[in-house]
């Protein structure tokens, strides 16, 4: 059973940017793509735990700020040739408000 938690207005996340949700189990990075799709990943790169929330977003991908791995926002998977995966969370946007399934 997913439990939808209200995060805030879409507008509060910069386009092609990200905001962090702090939780007891670690940070979650919530991304907003140019097309207003919202994604959420564990804020920890599969490579060396870089904070993905601080990376550059392009398309539905984020480039990690530490060593430039490219992580798919929808699946959390690293793009070839790198290998690895970070946890993903379901998101939905209703009436301009972002919800996260925890």
């Amino acid at each position, binding site marked *: 059973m997913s439990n939808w938690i209200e995060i*805030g207005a879409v507008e509060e996340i910069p386009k092609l940017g990200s905001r962090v949700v702090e939780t007891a189990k670690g940070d979650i990075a919530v991304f907003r793509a140019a097309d207003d799709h919202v994604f959420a990943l564990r804020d920890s790169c599969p490579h060396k735990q870089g904070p993905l929330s*601080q*990376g550059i977003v392009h398309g539905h991908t984020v480039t990690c700020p530490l060593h430039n791995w490219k992580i798919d926002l929808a699946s959390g998977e690293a793009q070839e040739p790198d290998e690895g995966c970070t946890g993903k969370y379901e998101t939905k946007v209703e009436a301009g408000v972002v919800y996260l399934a925890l």
Partner: protein
Amino acid sequence: MKEKLVLVGNGMAGVRTIEELLKIAPDMYDITVFGAEPYGNYNRILLSPVLAGDKTIDDIMLNTLDWYEENNIKLHVGKTVVDVDRKGRKVIADDGTEETYDRLLLATGSNPFIIPVPGHGLPGVIGFRDIKDVDTMLGTAKTKTHAVVIGGGLLGLEAANGLKIQGMDVTVVHLTDTLMERQMDDVSGRMLQQSLEEKGLQFLMATQTEAILGDDCVKAVRFKDGLEISADIVVMAAGIRPNIELAEKIGLHCERGIVVNDTMQTFDPKIYSVGECVQHRGETYGLVAPLFEQGKVCANHLAKFGIGRYEGSVTSTKLKVTGIDLFSAGDFTGDDTTEDIIMKDVANGVYKKVVLKDNKIHGAVMYGDTVDGAWYFQMLRDGTDVSDIRDHLMFGQAHLGDAGHGGENAASAMSDDMEVCGCNGVCKGDIVNAITDKGLFTLEEVKAHTKAAASCGSCTGLVEQILASTVGDYSDTPKKKAMCGCTEHTHDEVRHAIKHNELTSIPAVHEFLEWKTPDGCASCRPALNFYVLAAWPNESVDDPQSRFINERVHANIQKDGTYSVVPRMWGGVTTPNELRAIADAAEKFDAKMVKVTGGQRIDLFGIKKEDLPEIWSDLNKAGMVSGHAYGKSLRTVKTCVGEEWCRFGTQDSTGLGIKIEEMTWGSQTPHKFKIAVSGCPRNCAEATIKDFGVVCVDSGYELHVGGNGGIHVKATDLLARVATEEEAMEYCGAFMQIYREEAHYLERTAPWIERVGLSYVKEKVVEDEVGRKVLNQRFLDSQDVFKFDPWAREVADAETRKVYIPIKKIG
């Protein structure tokens, strides 16, 4: 219904085109491939190492049958296409198989030229072209002894070397008296022959074959001068002929090859052609690098993107015989209009000749020491003016202070477990395995797969050497180097378009230049943001989301996700008050370390992102601003104490340093920019390894540019000597402005000056007084926009401050 694409010829050029097509338009066509050979696609180049016993057939497969299946490609192996019905749009194979097409791609390669002397049809007379030929040679070598290779070109010598290693007695017969005369001059050709003789090969030079003798198989070869030698196998390596049999039969216009235009289209617009079978602008090619360029252009047109033209290639040559290093490119013979620079040390087996025309490299041939082949070749293709480096051109790139090329053939001397890339911990063995297992061809591919040379880049030269020694010559760097995968355009083209078409935002650039990806990528977006700002400081708006995190949050990210904070200390001078504020901030925000940097100021480490605005606010209150330690911007102006205190000081170096820092701080530059001012030639501020360095002397100021103390240490070049501080500052502004306007993003001043030449910079900044003043004025004008404290701005703006804190805290 998808359109149908049929490829005839399952070789290197054709399949590469399909790979390029799948990358950009994976679902556009139903693809069918016909190959006359009974295998998947293999790396023909590596037949030489297979013959020499260094590799097996399995090692050289590029695309196995599984690959075709995974990509939904229908493959007909072992079927030769014998006809095409151009009206009914279908191809017909020798076994009767038929396939219809909407687009047809011919990549039939070429055939070895078999000299039509009597006896040329005897069993045992072969070319050196495919797996079958190699099998024949290996089989013969097991039981027989005498081999004759006709033709002392690249292919002939590689065949001869392989047969010799397999234990045969090999005689190479060559028509002229210089081996590889199309690639070598007399001197290097003779040196080559001598080394091959030392390996045990025999040569009959200036000799013409008259007949091949034998009844049911070869027995001997007879020459025009009457000499006869025994032979169990004869390898004809006298050249290749484009395979245009099918094209001619179906009425396509052919000359020496199938004639195509710049988009790789034949005279029938439904039919494209690439590879050795093609004739483009009168040229045919026999090396893979140009064929891959053709493939890329062809794929682009098949995908209906319609950009990219093939404009012909300059090629270079290497011989894949272990222990022999030779390289040649361009026109190395020269004529009345050219000059030669030659370095010859026959005893040490080294010979280099570079042919110059109007101070540009026109051709090069090297024997023995070929480390710099790729470098000369790059300059040849770029048309680089070498006047400034002419006096040390022959000593190579290592001599210019560019590391990674050091040591003659360093790569082949390395063992597999030696580290090549210090940043990513990649060993030679990892690179070699990736190249062979994944079938990599270019530096870019090796970077992507192994991460070698993908970080600081200082091992690039070494990686290129490994690539060359593992796969033969693969330097397929296109003449035009696109900014990144998101566009076909080069940095210079993009900068030009931004300036001349008044493009003042990243989306405007994307639209005007038809970017291939919607938002670009982490590599082009920061570059475009800078280019737009640099060209239109007043009209454009900075885009924080297109900046690397450090520049976005005005601090340096650490490996644990915290940040470091460096306030500016003008000219390295501080006060008790500032120090007190720094100490207070360090305690209040729990800095994990306080460190004096290499740039004469203090760094506070381990600050949490959400605390940044507050620590800035505290530092601001004590009168301090951001040190831009994170920026592609002026970093610091390092100074020494100078005349005010030092017994040797000639001028007020500290004071001038502070003035320069006050003028240049906050500036946007292509890469970071460092300045120093030393009070006398003892140079305690290390001004001669800075981007702009001032060394004070009794009569005034020496101005130095293009130094670098980082990855490749490089001392500055002297730009000019001036008498006053005002002049020193004017030169500084003008120099920074021309660098800002013309260098590529992430190109420090040292490589930029190496690329454009010091003379060019002097012409603009020193010789042209009016031009200098105009540049300096443009610099000062844009400083009106750029010179602000980003910390204070962020602190003041409640909206942006929010970005530093979590959007929500749960639990």
